[in-house]
Each structure stands twice: as C-alpha cells, then as structure tokens.
C-alpha cells in the first residue's frame, strides 16, 4: 500500500453547468517514484484529474487518496498540497513576488517554515533547477522556461513527495520545453513522484507509465512501448504516436528490419546504427 502514493477510486467530477462529467469513473494508481504521463486532447479531463489529486477540487463521488490522505478531509488539505506540489501551464500567472528569491519563499512562508530555515532551502531549490544566479532577478525579465523553473523551485522548496505538472511546457518554445522537461526528469531520477500532463507525445514517450484520457475517462494505460506500439490503437482517441514511432512503423511496413519499441530519436539512431553494422 505504501508503494501506491496516489490512488483514485471510481472518481467522478462535474463542473457546474456542464452537461457531462469532466472526470468520469476514473480508477488510477501512481506508484512512488514513478514518472507518469497523462495524455489527451483538449477537454479530455486531464487537468481536472490533477486538480483532484491535490485537493484543489473535490470529487463528486469516489475517493482520491494522496500519500495516504483522503482529499475530502478538510483538516488535511494543507498537508496534501504541501506534499503534492503543482506547476501550472502559464508561467506568468503563478509567480507571486517581484523577485525570484521571494517567490520561492512564498510557499515556505505560507506553511510557516521558520525564517532562519528559509534561505538554505531556497538556495537548495534554486540550485536544483539551475536558477541560483537569477535569485535577485524580477520574474518578468526571465524567459518562459526560466519562469517555469522558478515555479518548480517554489514547489521544490516545500519538500514535496509528488509534483503535478499541468501542461507545464505547453506555452514554451522548444528550448524552454527541453529545459523544463530535463529538470523534471532529473528530479524524478532523484526520487520524486511525477505526474506529467501533456499533449506532446515525445514527452509522454519518455515517462514510465502513460495514461490516455478521452471524454473524462482513462481509455488506455501502459508503458510507452505498449501504448505507442501501434498507430491503430490510438486512432479512436484522435491521437498520434510520437514521430519516431510512426517513422519506425512505416519503415517496418516497407520491409526494413527494425524492432518494436522505437519511440525517440535516440532509439532510432541506435537501431539504425545497429542495422548498418550488420549490413
């Protein structure tokens, strides 16, 4: 049980005035230390799903248990949010203070961390996202990727066990996207449980588990290799496999002897070089 850090059981949630459930009878489990991707088109309910995990919204029915705590329990709400930090899509709309250092301190101030303890934790968090040299900058002078990394530091300083990312790279340029994704991958390697909401297949392909959502339901789950192995399986949800997986499939169809499970450019390079060596 301790291994399962997030457990959703038969969860439904409906927004006011909405015709149908935004999240519809979802069962989902995330293991400790895992990097999980949730994929889906706009309006598939993936953002609603993560907001349920840290108690920003409460389920209409079913239960959400985060790190052993039921999100319905009013007394636990601040513990849950401290334990499960969240980074949002728009980098401009989640930084509060006028200086990077003060912004990272925001969560610490809210949770009542003693003042003497703060500078050390802030420095550590900024170092982890490689933003220490910008500590005295104003947020509006940073690039999108840098702002998102500051937002991550702000969460990190609170020492959470889980980090939830709600399309954190959607508004960034390719470089910023890579910066942020690599930072999160590194945190995950150091033991952080990550839930990564995205609509970029390349990012999902690098996670350990992928869940695909459609109309509020989880319709497909598995490792990236399982989920992306066949374009036909994804077609009903109007999603496409990562470009390299698509290319591999077409090459296989054309008679090139490539193995299954190619998802990234690195995979492709490796397999093509192996193939060339055999010729």
């Amino acid at each position, binding site marked *: 049980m301790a291994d399962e850090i997030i457990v959703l059981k038969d969860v439904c949630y409906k927004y006011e005035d909405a015709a149908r459930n935004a999240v519809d009878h979802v069962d989902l489990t995330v293991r400790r230390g895992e990097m999980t991707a949730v994929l889906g088109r706009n309006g598939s309910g993936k953002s609603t799903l993560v907001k349920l995990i*840290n108690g*920003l919204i409460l389920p209409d029915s079913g239960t959400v248990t985060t790190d052993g705590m039921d999100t319905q329990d009013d007394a636990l709400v*601040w513990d849950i*949010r*401290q334990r499960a*930090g*969240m980074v*949002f899509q*728009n980098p*401009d*709309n*989640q*930084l*509060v*203070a*006028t*200086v990077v*250092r*003060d912004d990272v*301190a*925001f*969560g*610490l*101030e*809210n*949770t*009542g*961390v*003693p*003042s003497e303890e*703060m*500078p050390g934790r*802030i420095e550590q968090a900024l170092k982890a996202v490689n933003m220490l040299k910008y500590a005295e900058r*104003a*947020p*509006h002078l940073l690039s999108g990727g840098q702002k998102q990394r500051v937002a991550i530091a*702000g*969460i990190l300083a*609170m020492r959470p066990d889980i980090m939830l990312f709600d399309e954190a790279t959607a508004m960034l340029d390719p470089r910023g996207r890579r910066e942020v994704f690599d930072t999160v991958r590194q945190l995950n390697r150091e033991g952080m449980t990550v839930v990564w909401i995205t609509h970029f297949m390349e990012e999902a392909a690098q996670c350990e588990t992928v869940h695909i959502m459609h109309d509020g339901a989880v319709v497909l789950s598995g490792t990236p290799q399982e989920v992306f192995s066949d374009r036909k399986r994804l077609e009903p949800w109007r999603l496409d496999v990562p470009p390299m997986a698509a290319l591999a499939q077409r090459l296989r169809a054309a008679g090139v002897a490539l193995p299954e499970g190619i998802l990234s450019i690195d995979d492709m390079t490796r397999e093509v070089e192996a193939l060339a060596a055999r010729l």
Partner: protein
Amino acid sequence: MLENITLGQYYPIKSPVHALDPRVKILLLIAYITGVFLVPDLTGFIIVLLYLALACRLSRLPFRLLVKSLKPLRMILIFTFILNLFFTGGETPLLNLGFATLTKEGLLNALRYSLRLVFLVLGSSMLTLTTAPVVLTDGLERLLSPLKVIHFPAHEMAMMMTIALRFIPTLLEEADKIMKAQSARGADFESGKLFERAKAMVPLLVPLFVSAFRRAGDLAMAMEARCYHGGEGRTRLNVLKVERRDWIAILITALFIALIVLEPRIVPWHV
C-alpha cells in the same frame, strides 16, 4: 518603452539610508513632516535644510534626482507663492504695483508656505527614492498589523500591493501586444478628437480586462496550490530588525525635532 519602466522612483544603490529598516524610515518621515509643520519662522528652515542635506549625503543620491521630484509640483508651488504674496495683507508695504500692494508679511508668508511644501515633497521623495516599493509595502504591513485587532486587513492590503507591483510589467507587455494586434487590423489609437481616441481605446481595454480576470483566476489557483491561506500562521523570509544604524537615525531625527522646537529660544532674531 517597456524595458525601462521603473516602478515608483526607487533608486537602487547601496547606502546606509537604503539599508534602514522600512518601518523606521516610515516613522521617521512622519516625524520629519511633523517637524516641518512645527517650524516657527524662516530661520527654522535652515535646520530642515541641514537635516535633509545630511540624509541626502548619507543616501548617496544624486542631488538633481531629489530636485526632480519637485517638478510635478511646480504649478502648485507657484500658485501658493503668488496667492500668499498678494492676499496675506499686512501693515508694512514694500512695493506698490497699482493693482496690488506687496507687503513684508505677504512676502514672508509666501516664502514660509512654499518652503514648507518644498521640504514636505523632498522628504517624502527621500523615502520613496531609497526604499523599494515591495520593501515599503512590507514595512507598512508590519506597522499596520497591530490594527488587525480592529479587523484592519493589513496583510491583505500588502499582498494586493505586492501582486499589483508584480503584474504591472506583465499587463503593460500585454497591452502593448494587444495594441499592436489591433493596429495591424487597422485600429487607430493616435489621431482623431479626444472622444474618438477614447472610443478607440475600447478594443484595447476589453481584451486587457478579460485577460486580467483570467490571470487573477489562474493566480488564485496557483496561490492556493502553494498553501496560501491568508496572513495567519505565516512566517517571513525577510525578518526586519531594528539595528544600530536605525537607532542612530532615530537619534538624529529626535535632535532635529528638538532643534526646531527650541529654535526661537536659541536664535535671537525672528523672521
């Protein structure tokens, strides 16, 4: 245009005055203003001038910056001077202009009121020039926090100020973007009569407001996700502490007030 916006008029250098506790600085300004109002005659302003010169010297501010802060007030200053000059009345005529008479009392009164105004503005600028807006807000919050007993929202006001300061550049950037987008589609913000120009602002203001509300919603969500739940039980990164230099500043200011009060007894002449 957007890169060089400055918030307030803060002049970011390091100096003993900049380093003073903001709470102390605010209280000293109040003391200084009281002092300026207590000045009994023109000679007293020499003390104010000396005090201000000392502060200016210690703060390492360029003198012209301080003087520049008087510029927006020049019309009011001229008015104050002229009105007092002619409408004070008095017994000792200096000059007869035909339509009005200049009296000695009028001249002294005009000088007194204008100088008082000048020194009030210079003193307040001293505070805003040497204190970053966020630090000032922080100081105000802590000074006002005893009023929480009577439900005065000191923390909430300070938080609002901080967020406003944080979002001014963001919203300016956005306004610039919308303006360019509307101009590209033929909107004209520059020509026409006043009413037409005001009307042309509508397509700029509506999207700006809509986006500001969306931002507010997002920010509220992000703040909640980071455990924000009001001022209760909150700790602070920056702990304010009254240090030796603060006590020195308080001492100098106390001396300044004492000098002003005692000035009529020390100085034999009175103007």
